[in-house]
């Protein structure tokens, strides 16, 4: 059988250096962002709306391309490397209705594996395993628009887990979930072995699941350090449009 794993070229999972990006309408979303994330780390990306969190996540697998250097496990985000990088980084979008675009749950989860060129048998195996991983075994034939938001969020995670990525980049994992769905979703995140970088407004989530925190403001990194220390600094949080928990 072919080996579909991608070899890491460096110990750092993510290395971003001097990344800047402007949207076509001229709005500057990222200004000279540099950060490094080690393999296995869990990082919360926090900041007010428009701080550049989502834009940064979309750079991690080359959906957006800014000026500067982005490397994922040593792979530069250049055209020749994009297929490998997209296999390494699973991006989970904020709104599952954007992420789940197929008529059935099976088709959606199979999408990534099919594009990886896996055999039909392997695709089916991966769909089954990804569904089991998010606690939704047996949902293959369901239609995404008939599921609850909590269920759609879990399926959205499954669509990237099926590609067996090393890194998960998740945009607003808990937004819009009721307390029970949120708790279950946090349990799911806790069990995943991947390196995770998540953009969130949910500082309780950050406190419970992410030992490291990066505060963004106006496209820049304003603070980067242990979550407990940043959350203890009420002045810093207020200055960047956040609130102490």
């Amino acid at each position, binding site marked *: 059988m072919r080996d579909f794993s991608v070899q890491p070229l460096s110990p750092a999972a993510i290395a971003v250096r001097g990344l800047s990006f402007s949207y076509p309408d001229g709005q500057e979303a990222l200004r000279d962002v540099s950060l490094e994330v080690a393999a296995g780390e869990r990082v919360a990306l926090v900041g007010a709306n428009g701080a550049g969190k989502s834009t940064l996540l979309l750079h991690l697998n080359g*959906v957006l391309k800014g000026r500067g250097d982005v490397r994922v496990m040593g792979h530069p985000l250049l055209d020749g490397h994009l297929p490998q990088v997209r296999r390494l980084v699973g*991006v989970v979008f904020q709104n599952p209705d*954007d992420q789940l675009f197929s*008529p059935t749950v099976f*088709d959606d989860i199979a999408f990534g594996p099919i*594009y990886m060129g896996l055999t*039909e048998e392997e695709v089916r195996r991966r769909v089954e395993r990804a569904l089991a991983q998010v606690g939704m075994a047996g949902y293959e034939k369901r239609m995404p628009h008939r599921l609850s938001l909590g269920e759609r969020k879990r399926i959205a995670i499954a669509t990237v887990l099926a590609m067996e990525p090393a890194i998960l980049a998740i945009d607003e994992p808990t937004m819009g979930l009721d307390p029970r769905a949120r708790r279950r979703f946090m349990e799911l995140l806790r069990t995943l072995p991947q390196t995770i970088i998540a953009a969130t407004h949910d500082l309780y989530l950050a406190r419970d699941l992410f030992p490291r925190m990066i505060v963004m403001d106006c496209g820049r990194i304003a603070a980067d350090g242990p979550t407990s220390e940043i959350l203890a600094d009420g002045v810093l949080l207020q200055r960047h449009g956040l609130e102490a928990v």
Partner: protein
Amino acid sequence: MSIAFPLTDRYRAGDSPLHRLDARVKLLAALAFIFAATLVPAGEWAAFALLALLLVIVVALSRLPPLLVLRRSALALPFLIVALPLLFTKSGEELFSVPVVFWRWQATDAGLTALCSILVKSLLSVAAAVVLTATTPSFDVLKALRGIGVPRILVITVSFMYRYLAVIGEEAARLLRARDCRSVRVDRRGGGSLLWRSRVTGNMVGSLFLRSYERSERVFDAMTARGYDGELRSLAARAPAAGQWALLAAFALLLVGVEVYARL
């Protein structure tokens, strides 16, 4: 948070022999039936009766409520209005006439035959499609379309449409509700001119289009993030069992028989 949008699926879950039949076989059979119904010459009532009998047998096999099939088939009736002029334009023996301004329109027996034939043909055709969509999940119909060679880009477009119909419908419902919450009438007459109101409605349609357009860009990003490279791929479908092809062949032969009988 979400507003229920009544997207009624045409599919009726069941476990009849017809439900278990491969979607491609059903799709081809339905298409063959529609062709056969269309090709029967006008006024061949016995042939129409045979086709109707075939359909009744299929509906019985599908265990669908007959009333459901009839109700959904009524969709064909409004189109009959378009065929109404046939009643007066065919030459034949006069049945009755209608005075129209300076002259009289003459309804003929040939016209009546043509009109009734069109009615029967469209009812039979729509009923066949109704049975197909009621016994086959919509995404299976889509896959079957792909399976019989409809270009992938068309099938994918329809499948996106089906996927996002409910999402966009809900968005529209939210917009309408937000408008209703703010349209308070102080006296009997609502405020604003008709022009202003239609402009508001136009703005809402525009806003819905923009939202859908922006969503399509996010969906494209989500596809790109999972490796989409502009090429459309999917798992190859399994071929239906040989027995099902045989069944389809037998059905097609029956239809040919009806056509031959109609022309004897």
